[in-house]
C-alpha cells in the first residue's frame, strides 16, 4: 500500500503501524507516532490498521530550546 511517512511517499507491505515501523527501519527506536494528525500511543500501534494514503509521522528526540 502507498502511504506518506514524514512527508515522503513510501510503498509498504505491512498492514498495521507496528509492522510498518519495523519495515521502515525504526525497529527498537525511541519514537512517537501519529497517523493522519492523531497521536497513536506505542501500545496501540499493533492494532492501528493502516489504509492506502495514510499520513504517518514518526518523531524522535531532538535538540530544542
Amino acid at each position, binding site marked *: 500500500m502507498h502511504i506518506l511517512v514524514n512527508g515522503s511517499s513510501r510503498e509498504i507491505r505491512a498492514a498495521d503501524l507496528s509492522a510498518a515501523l519495523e519495515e521502515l527501519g525504526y525497529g527498537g*527506536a525511541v519514537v512517537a507516532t*501519529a497517523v493522519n494528525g492523531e497521536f497513536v500511543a506505542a501500545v496501540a500501534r499493533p492494532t492501528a490498521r493502516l489504509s492506502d494514503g495514510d499520513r504517518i509521522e514518526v518523531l524522535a528526540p531532538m*535538540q530544542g530550546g
Partner: protein
Amino acid sequence: MLQLYDAQLRSRLLLGTARYPSPTILTEAVKASGAEIVTVSLRRESGGERAGQGFWSIIRDLGVRILPNTAGCHSVKEAVTTAHMGREVFGTSWVKLEVIGEDETLQPDVFGLVEAARILCQEGFEVFPYTTEDLIVTERLLEAGCRVLMPWGSPIGSGRGLNNLFGLKALRARFPEVPLVLDAGIGVPSHAAQALELGFDAVLINTAVSQARDPAAMAAAFAQAVAAGRAAYEAGPMEPRDLAVPSTPVIGKAFLG
C-alpha cells in the same frame, strides 16, 4: 531551593539543547551550567539515519530532568498532539507549551496558548506555558491549571534582554507566589542577573550559550550571574532615586574654604 511543580531544584538556570557546535560541546555546556533541567524537542526521524536516537542517548546520560517543548506548533491541535508524543517518548508529564502566533517575532498566540493549556492541564500534564507579560493572559493560564509560567524577555534568539521592564515588574508584583521562569531573548549574563534581581525565580537560556564562541565558558558565566542575581534579590536591593545622596557623611566635614 526552587520548586517547579513537585521538583525541588538547586539551580535556577534551565538550559536549551539546540544549536550547539557539537554534541560534545553541548554536554560540556550543560555540565558547566549546573542546570538540572534541559529542554528538548521532537522532530521527524529518518528510519535510516536515526539521528534522534544518538541525541537521546547523550541527553539521558546527563542525568538531568527533561522539559519537552512544543516548539514550532502554530495551532492548539498541533501543540496538544506534540505534547502527547513528548510525554510518551520522554516519560514526563512536563511540557513547555509553545503555540506560536507569528513567525517574525515568534510571539506566542496567547489565545491558543490558554486553550491548549486548559486541555493539557485537564489531561494531567504539568504545563510550563511560554507566554508574554500580559497580566490577564497570566490569570487565564493560572485558571487553566498552570502552576509555573514562562514569560518572554524578548523574542526567541534575539539576545535583546528584558524588553519590557515595566511589564515584567508588574507581572512579578501581581503574582508574587507563582514561579516565573524568564524564557527567551536573554543575550548575556547581565540580562539573566537582572531577571533574578527583579525576583524572577529562574531563567531559561539557549542561544546565548550555544552560539557563544566558547559555550561551556559562557554556561559557567551564566551560572554565576544567576547565582549573583538571586543573592542580590534575597539581600533586598536599594530603591533607585533621581537625585544624588552623599554616601560620605556631611556632618563633621572640615571648613577649608
